[in-house]
């Protein structure tokens, strides 16, 4: 008799059953408020084809998928735990990856690919999405990464800086009821520095009172600020245009001497502009990460009291992280304003803040490469699902998956897909810190 084994086994079976059926419900047909059980009932009982082999109820199908996945994971784990060839391969790879010239070559290849991308991608939807839904979100994720990844501050109102950048652009170009600073309008190209600076100033203004707070309070208060910015944009009709939005924001244009260029409806010129800024911001954030400033951020993130005892002023560095992170969000705002020509407060929601956070967490907090990768992957998947939703998929379900993804990531891989070098190590570290904070 081996009872404990049976008990353990049945617990596992139960867990697999529950999570499989949950997956069935999540992916199943929707219900409605009048007959609440319809959605659940159909999700479980509806007939579905098992990879074209045979037809069975969804509940059985998903349970089968659950068991297969479990066995696959189990098998993979076993295979890996006594496979030294894999290990040596991995260490070889990582030693190559550390090589300076390899890194340089990789960066060059990626750069060339980025420049050639519009020639490969000709579908107008994707050309547009590449700019307004992917590159802009890369910028936002890069900025939030400075705040969350480098300095360890959970900011749930990051969208506020995006909004400041966008509305600043609308303001400079005369699209707000409030007259622009120069009396006459400028085109958005010249609004770039103003928007970035205003976003940074907003970072400082929001940062100084809130960054004295403990981490979890900070999350709630920043969330509040994000909401308040939207609220003001909505209510200060005389300044922002209110819920009805701005007037027409013009496209970018450049008139310097003989040089004359106007960005029109075609997204490709925007693509090159935004890619240029993405590279610039990556360079800036990378330099900062590997400088005194980056080390100070890490020190504060790891142990604020110890950092203070070494003479680091935490408030100053935290405010700086806010301001620097806000810079790229400010530029993202310029892009959005100039390209979509039109802003309403409804764009800048809490959901967007969380969306940006998901990109950062998925890619790897604190890892610039990870964050860029994460933003590209998640936004591409999101846009793919919007563009060509697979049969049986209801677009609003995306947020259910995103929620589940966050929880699963935190349980199984808190460092993200590409954990930052430093985070990776922090994982190994004993967490005596957590307990001695009292």
């Amino acid at each position: 008799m081996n009872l404990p084994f049976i008990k353990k086994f049945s617990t596992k079976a139960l867990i697999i059953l529950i999570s499989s059926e949950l997956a069935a419900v999540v992916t199943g047909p929707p219900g409605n408020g009048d007959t609440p059980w319809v959605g659940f009932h159909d999700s479980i009982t509806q007939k579905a084809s098992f990879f074209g082999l045979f037809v069975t109820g969804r509940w059985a199908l998903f349970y089968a998928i659950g068991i297969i996945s479990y066995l696959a994971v189990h098998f993979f784990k076993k295979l890996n735990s006594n496979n030294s060839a894999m290990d040596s391969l991995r260490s070889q790879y990582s030693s190559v990856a550390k090589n300076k010239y390899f890194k340089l070559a990789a960066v060059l290849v990626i750069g060339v690919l980025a420049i050639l991308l519009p020639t490969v991608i000709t579908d107008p939807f994707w050309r547009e999405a590449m700019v307004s839904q992917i590159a802009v979100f890369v910028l936002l994720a890069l900025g939030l990464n400075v705040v969350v990844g480098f300095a360890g501050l959970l900011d749930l109102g990051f969208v506020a800086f995006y909004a400041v950048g966008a509305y600043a652009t609308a303001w400079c170009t005369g699209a707000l009821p409030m007259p622009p600073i120069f009396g006459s309008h400028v085109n958005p190209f010249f609004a770039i520095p103003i928007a970035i600076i205003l976003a940074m100033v907003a970072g400082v203004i929001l940062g100084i009172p809130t960054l004295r707070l403990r981490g979890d309070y900070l999350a709630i208060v920043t969330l509040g600020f994000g909401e308040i910015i939207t609220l003001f944009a909505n209510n200060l009709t005389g300044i922002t245009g209110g819920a009805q939005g701005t007037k027409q924001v013009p496209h970018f244009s450049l008139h310097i001497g003989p040089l004359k260029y106007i960005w029109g409806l075609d997204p490709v010129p925007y693509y090159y502009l935004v890619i240029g800024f993405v590279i610039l911001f990556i360079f800036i954030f990378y330099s900062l990460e590997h400088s005194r400033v980056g080390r100070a951020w890490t020190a504060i993130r790891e142990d604020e009291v110890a950092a203070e005892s070494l003479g680091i002023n935490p408030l100053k560095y935290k405010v700086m992280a806010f301001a620097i992170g806000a810079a790229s969000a400010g530029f993202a705002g310029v892009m959005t304003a100039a390209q979509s020509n039109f802003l309403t407060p409804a764009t800048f929601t809490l959901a967007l803040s969380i969306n940006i956070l998901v990109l950062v967490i998925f890619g790897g907090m604190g890892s610039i490469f990870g964050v860029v990768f994460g933003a590209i992957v998640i936004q591409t998947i999101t846009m793919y699902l919007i563009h060509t939703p697979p049969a049986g998929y209801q677009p609003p379900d995306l947020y259910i998956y995103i929620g589940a993804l966050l929880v699963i990531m935190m349980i199984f891989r808190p460092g993200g897909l590409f954990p930052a070098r430093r985070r990776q190590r922090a994982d190994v570290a004993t967490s005596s810190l957590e307990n001695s904070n009292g």
Partner: protein
Amino acid sequence: MKIRLNKSVAALATGALLLVGVPVAGLATASSAAAKPVYVIGYEGPLTGSGAQYGQNELGGLNLAINNANATGMLPFTLQVKSYDSQGDPTLSPAQAQAEVANTNLVAVVGDAFSGATHAGEPYWYSAHVAAITPSATAVTIATGKNNFFRMVYGDDIQGTTDANFLVKTKGAKTVTVISDGSFYGAGIAGVVSVAAKTAGATVTNDALPQTSSCSGGVASVSEFAAEATKIKASNPAAVFYGGYACDFANLLPALKSAGYKGTVMSGDGSYDAVLLKTTTPKSAAKGAYLSAANCGSTGNLTGTLAKQYKKLTGIEPAAALYDAQAYDAGNILVAALQKVSLTGGVPAIRAAIITYLHAGSWTGVTGKIQFQANGNLVGTGKGNIAIYKVTGTKLPTAHTCY
């Protein structure tokens, strides 16, 4: 470290496997018919995000029209609806608009549902000469005079002015409080009513209860409606106009009744919806409230067989769906257009011909008589076209007077 990595790779693999399972497990797509040319009607609107319900309502209405047209078997072509999800977001609309105009079978677009997204998509539709018929965008500013823009509802200006005149002139209200819900629509109509009421000679107070639109994802705290009602009771205006949607008007009405306010209460077409009496608790609190809606002479909702078909197709209760009927009518108008215009010149020519046809024709749909002005607005100054209803029982009223 190593184990951690493998575990998560495995977890991701599991996830991927599940996702692969989804499309397989989904319903099989219908096989296409033979020979006949296929034309696509695009639907753009919020299918995700906070405004998703509007998009689903309208998409359902459009699908119903197109399905029924195909089912007659009389058409020399096959029609398909392709949906483009803008999330009602002006930043996403350009991408979808470009995808739509790039679709080589697409002849016209129904959408966008929201004014902001319509505004942002317009330049792209215009540059490709694609007619865009919005079932629900009412902002005054989006009718910019471009020839490809059409809408199935009256703009805020006509309805709002009529409502203001009704309150001030017909009901004799000398003091009016105008409350907006802070949504694009609500702020728009509230703004128009406020100005028009002032013009008509009333003293107007403006207020806002923003981000409360529970029809689209927000909810006010209990106390906000109660306190607003108390405040109204204290200043005691002769009339209250609410610019917003039914879900919230349903909260304001009981609050006003509890506070003991006895004046005239009114709201626009956003509130003329079965949801109003589904949500107002108790239902008697809605008694005596006035509602306005464009297109006098129709209920604005799908009824009878259509309602049954709609329910079957979408799972949405048609009486509780906003703008489903407008989208249904828009679909039928496009079917009529395709039957009239020459189909020989290829899609670009058809697109242009549809625009010309839409400017020339007139139709009668479930929402009433439809004819477009040059700028795409419905014909008429609105005089006699705005229906005003008074809630009397526990069902959405149908008896109305035209103003």
